[in-house]
Structures are given as C-alpha cells and as structure tokens.
C-alpha cells in the first residue's frame, strides 16, 4: 500500500522554483532518505507532504495513505485530520521551550484525543504513562520534568521524536533531523529513527545533508537537485562518482571528507554501466 504519493508538485518562491513537477511514491514501511545540496528543495518537499505549505498553481496532488491532503495548491478539508497521522521532526526540534519536556511530548496526543480535552490540556494517566514510555524509548526518561530549553540539541531532537511516537503516526517525516547535531548525537538519532521504522513499521522519510547517513540507514534514496528528482533507487547504487556527476562541485557538501568512496556495506557491487532509475 502506498503511504505517500506526490503528483506533479511544483512550488515557487517569487521567481525561484523550489520544486519542479515532483512526483514520487513511497510504500508503507519504507525508510527513505531525501538528499540534495542546500536549496535543492528537500525541506520544501517535506513541508508540502505534511501540509504545512501548499503547492503553487497547477494540477498537483499529494495523498497520504490514500487520502488527499492537498490538491492543486489547496489543503483539503481533511488536512488537519491527516496531519495527525504524519509525525514531523524538524531540524531545529521546534519544542515549546518554556514548557516541560513531558508537556511537549504529551502534545503528540492533540490530534487523537477529543478536542475539548486537548484544549484544556487534560491528559489521562495512560497518556502520561505512554509519554514517559516514549521518552524512555528514545533514551531520555530522566528529563521529563525539565524545561525543554534546558536540554542539549541531541536530547531535544529525541524529545521531538518521542512526541511523534506519542502521536502514533503511521508516517514519520524528518526534516534534516541531524543537521544541527554533533556526530554522536546524530548517529543516535538516526539509530532511533531506523529502530522506529523497523519495530513499529512506521514509514520514514528523512532528509539528509550527508549521503553517508543515507547509505548507512536508508535502503532507498531520493536525490533532488534544483527542485527536481534526479535519482530514485537503492542507496547502495549511489556512489560518490555518481554524486559528482549529479551535483558537480556541489557534491562536496554531500560527502564527508573522510568518507570512503564506495558504499559502506554494499550488498552487491553496483555493476558498472547499469543505470539506476533516473527520473
């Protein structure tokens, strides 16, 4: 079954075309990396899928689990309900700084529980227990009562992931979740995302700046350049040489300086000359 289906999505900011006729399908349970240089449209694409932005004019549509969230630049009436099924993790964590970590995690319930109860901020004992379990799941059970602003970046991002766990979403979109983190926090966050995908069978789409992480954690990679999909296929086929071909001098920012020039764990050596699915 298709989790995310995007058709002919275009978006312009002024004269700049951020997304250009993007179409893609992601099946349930997939773990997909979205890579590309800065300004290639990764964040814009994710913001459209979760309904925080709407497309520019044109016949586009985005379906989440078979239901339209936006069509031809307009959110559908169901958009708010569908957002509840899509958890989003942001580059800057986007926690409400002055509130406790537990409150922030409990907000994941808002889309699921009756509106009056959510509006009064009245969460049940079970929901609180689930929130604490989610914090334990991401490895920070001890910070529940701290103000969100007192956490380190890595902890904040894990709290944000706990919020999406409480949300019990079917899809998890992560917009550069590790771009503001140090390497060890980054690895931990990626491992949590991979585990969530594996154990809870949540479809994950992770936009990444560095192709290294895509190869290590995501079986499939979609590469964007100037708002177009330029590669869509197994991450193992995405060699550094191909990146140079795709991005030219921009490829430098995608490849870690100390990265090996071949995929980390190639299941099968990519046969030379076999063209991957260029869209």
């Amino acid at each position, binding site marked *: 079954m298709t989790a995310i289906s995007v058709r002919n999505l275009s978006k312009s900011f002024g004269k700049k075309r951020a997304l250009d006729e993007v179409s893609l399908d992601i099946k349930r349970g997939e773990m997909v990396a979205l890579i590309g240089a800065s300004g290639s449209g990764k964040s814009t694409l994710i913001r459209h899928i*979760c309904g925080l932005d709407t497309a520019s004019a044109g016949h586009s549509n985005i379906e989440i689990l078979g239901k339209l969230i936006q069509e031809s630049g307009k959110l559908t009436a169901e958009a708010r309900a569908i957002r509840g099924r899509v*958890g989003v993790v942001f580059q800057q964590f986007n926690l409400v700084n002055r509130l406790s970590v537990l409150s922030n995690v409990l907000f994941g319930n808002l889309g699921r529980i009756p509106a009056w109860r959510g*509006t009064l901020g009245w969460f049940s004992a079970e929901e609180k227990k689930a929130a604490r379990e989610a914090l334990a799941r991401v490895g920070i059970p001890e910070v529940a009562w701290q103000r969100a602003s007192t956490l380190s970046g890595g902890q904040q991002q894990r709290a944000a992931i706990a919020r999406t766990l409480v*949300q019990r979403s079917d899809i998890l979109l992560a917009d550069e979740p590790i771009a503001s983190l140090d390497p060890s926090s980054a690895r931990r966050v990626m491992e949590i995302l991979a585990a969530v995908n594996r154990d809870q069978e949540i479809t994950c789409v992770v936009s990444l700046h560095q192709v290294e992480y895509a190869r290590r954690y995501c079986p499939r990679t979609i590469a964007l350049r100037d708002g177009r999909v330029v590669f869509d296929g197994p991450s193992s086929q995405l060699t550094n040489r191909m990146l140079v071909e795709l991005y030219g001098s921009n490829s430098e920012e995608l490849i870690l300086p100390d990265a090996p020039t071949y995929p980390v764990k190639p299941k099968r050596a990519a046969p030379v000359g076999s063209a991957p699915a260029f869209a």
Partner: protein
Amino acid sequence: MTDTSNTASPRPAPVEIEPNWTRSRGTTICWIALAVLLAWSWGPAEMSNWPHLFTDSGNMAQYAKEFSHPDFSDWRYYAQEMVVTLQIALWGTFLAAALAVPLGVLSARNMAPWYVVQPVRRVMDACRSTHELVFAVLFVVAVGLGPFAGVMALFVHTTGIFAKLFSEAVEAIDARPVEAIRSTGASRIQEVLFGVVPQVMPLWISFTLYRFESNVRAATVLGVIGAGGIGQVLFESIRGFYYPQASAMLIIMLVTVSVLDFVSQQMRKLFL
C-alpha cells in the same frame, strides 16, 4: 573608464564631500516651524501670565505652609478609600487583561487574516486613544457615580492598550514550535494555547503588572470626576480648603504607589 592601472598616481585624488543642502535646509525649516507654532500658541495658552508665579508668591507660600502640616487624624478613612482605589484598579486591569487575550491574538497579523485584524485593531485604537477620564465621564452618566464607573473606564481604555501590547508580543514569536503543534493535527485554538501562549506569557504578565501600577495612579484621578476612591475625597477636601487633610491623603497615595511600584517591579523580574 580608461585604463588607469599603469598610470596610477601615488596620491589619491582629494575626495570632495558635497554638502547635503536638502538635509540642512530641512532642519532649518523644522526649527522655524516650531518657533512659529510656539508664538501662535502663546496668547491662547495665556503664557503672558507667567509673572503671576512671582507676584502671587504669597498665595503659594500660604499653600505650601498648610500642606506642610498634614493632618492624619482621619487616616483610617483615607486608607480605606485608598484600598477602594486599589480595588478599582485591580478589577479594571483584570477585566482588560482577560478580554485582551483573545483580542490581542485576533489583532496579530501572524494569527488572523487581515479582514479580522484590521477591524479589531481600529476598535482597539479607539479604546486606547480616548483618555480614561473621558470614559469615566461617560460611565458616570451611564451607571451612576461611584467606583463601578471607574472600573469600567479603566477596563475599556486598558483593553485597548493591552490588545496592542499583547498582539505585538504575539507577532514577535517563533513560528516553529507552532508549526510543530500544528503537525500533530491540533486544532487552531490548541495551536494558540500550546504554541503561542507559553511563548508570550512572561511578556503578557509583565505588561499587566506594569499597567496595574499605572491604573492605580489613573484611578486616583478618576475619583476627581466622581468615580469613587481616594481621588474623590482628595478633590473634595482641596475644594473645601482642607489642605492639611489633602496633604495627608497625598502622602498616603505617594507611599502606596511607591510600594506598589517596587513590589510589581520585583514580581516582573521573576517572570522575565
């Protein structure tokens, strides 16, 4: 440009800064305009009476002498009326803060569409630009003499002020946590409650405390036109030439307002 790279002179050409005539001419015009306005207002403002300050210095001395002997024999009554003034200010400020929360959000450009923002703002402008005293006169006619008219006058005027201050705080928030709340499928009201309010709460509280201080001062003046509290008693005793009593009341007011200023300043430090 001709090729000057080979024949570059060792001395740079002297830079001439052109005097900016339009600017200095503008300044001169402003000063002249101010002088004309002041001259024009001299007569109507009866500024020619300034020597009276000195020729009637006997009156002033008499005034000062009587004020320098405050009569505290009725202090219980004054204190009671001072408390009434505080109570007027308390209710006026509270009602205004409560109503300004929704109105402040509705007049913030990042929260509501323009066809809501603009009308709400215009109404709030009207509340704010009219002095409390004017509202008090109106309310005295509408609800009769007494403290309630004062509460209503403070309420309407302060709501206008709060709506502007609150909405400016809302316009300066970080939009990203609000988006995160939205992405959980929360409703619009929940976005505001959990994404916006926690961010602006310290500022809102600080504004409210500060305005409470000013409203205590305003409430004493409102008493003058019959809206209750110590102001009313003060005005009556000045009109009856009971200067020692008036002086006692002024001292009580001064002390109360200073104590209040200090306390609310300390409280605001806690919240910010």
